[in-house]
């Protein structure tokens, strides 16, 4: 009887430690920005959201990020409103990525490390499999993330807007920056 109780107690202790470790290796955003850059001939404009939310779980390599698209700002209110309409934010409020970190990450090293993630990126109700590369830099209890990729609006059934008769380039440069901190267990 005593042996069985001891084994149970050890098992529970192990689970406790596993939980603590999992939480300790789970990083969530404290601050994050996502920026897109659009271009038309002789003109370029950017939009930024400072409401990037995300987590990186080192234990199981899970990567999960999203932004509320209505938080994107381009500096011109009318353009923001038009953009929300183009993206049909009312129906599809989020742009989101969920996938796995496929490169190794040494969180004990303070060096910038190339990070590669594979997963599903969704916007405007369309989900596509993507591979994104960036850098992850451990900073003590935090992780610094930078990544960029090109998003083709037409692949997500988004009609590129027009400036008068000139169509905005469907290929948008997307970049994200975030500081992620360990989540309290």
């Amino acid at each position, binding site marked *: 009887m005593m042996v069985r109780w001891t084994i*149970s107690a050890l*098992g*529970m202790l192990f*689970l*406790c430690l*596993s*939980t603590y470790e*999992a*939480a300790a290796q*789970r990083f*969530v955003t404290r601050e994050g920005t996502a920026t897109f850059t659009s271009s038309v001939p002789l003109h370029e*404009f*950017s*939009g*930024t959201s400072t*409401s990037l*939310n*995300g*987590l990186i*779980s080192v*234990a*199981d390599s*899970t990567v*999960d990020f*999203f932004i*509320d698209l*209505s*938080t994107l*700002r*381009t*500096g*011109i*209110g*009318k*353009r*923001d*409103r*038009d953009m*929300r*309409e183009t993206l049909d934010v*009312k129906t599809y*409020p*989020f742009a*989101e990525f*969920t996938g796995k970190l496929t490169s190794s990450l040494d969180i004990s090293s303070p060096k910038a490390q190339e990070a590669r993630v594979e997963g599903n990126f969704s916007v405007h109700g369309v989900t596509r499999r993507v591979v994104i590369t960036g850098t992850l830099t451990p900073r003590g209890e935090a992780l610094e993330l930078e990544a960029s990729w090109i998003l083709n609006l037409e692949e997500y059934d988004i009609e590129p*807007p*027009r*400036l*008068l008769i000139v169509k*905005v380039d469907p290929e948008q440069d997307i970049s994200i920056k975030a500081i992620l901190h360990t*989540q309290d*267990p």
Partner: protein
Amino acid sequence: MTQRIVRALLLVVMLVPVTTANAQLERQLADPGGSVDELFWAPSIVTLPTVTNVYPGNLNFTIHHSFGLVSGGVDELFGLDGAANIRFGFDYGLTDNLSIGVGRERFDKVYDARAKWNVFHQTTDGRIPFEMAVAGDVGVTTLKNGLSFNDRLNYGAALLVARKVNDAVSIQISPLVSHFNVVYRDLDRFGNPVEQQNTHVAVGIGARWKVRARMALSVEYVPVLGSRSDNTSDALSLGVDLNTFGHVFQMFFTSTQWMTMQHSAARNQDRFWDGDFRFGFMVNRVFNLTNDY
């Protein structure tokens, strides 16, 4: 048996945090129940201000143009040869809810300054079912006619109450007061004195119906209540708005040749349904004057 159940429960309790730690983030809106977007595309329908305001740090430049009466026929190229009125205007967003502006129109060489303040916004969760704003405009006529500065002033003040009924339709009701410090006492062509009123009260009615993603039909009607100047009529405008990513183009047929709400309510002399309307257009372009982006 009891011990087994307790141990099983403990295991479940211990496992739950591990499972939770691996779950996705909960998707949460940054501003749930926030303001409804775009009741109107532009700060004005034709002569009536809309509840749509200029964003802080943005400058809305407007060119407002109207021609002569279409009834002039082909000889007058349907009004394009007629006397045209034109107003250049600039509106600047000071805060999320307050804008100020200046403009100048050709007729009577009127310079005007105006402001618009959004009192509250319609919300997406229905908590506030409509949007309310107040707008004011002060004009000064600069014609060389010997009048003092005070006698040249005119005023318009409106309460703007609007609701976006659905994604396509927005409506606005705008009780307004128009006042001119001095009005002329003319004679009509039969030699009878034309009575003019200094003050007019009207209820502006406006609506927008978005027929396509980038195209909307609009209407503006300004019926005057109570006494009014002789030979004046309620202004009516019917238009089409085109919204591009950078501009809003508004094209319309309108009975009034005037371009501020106080002039539209007090001085319109043409009757739309008698065929006395003219073609006009308005171009809106927004610039960002901040270095934030």
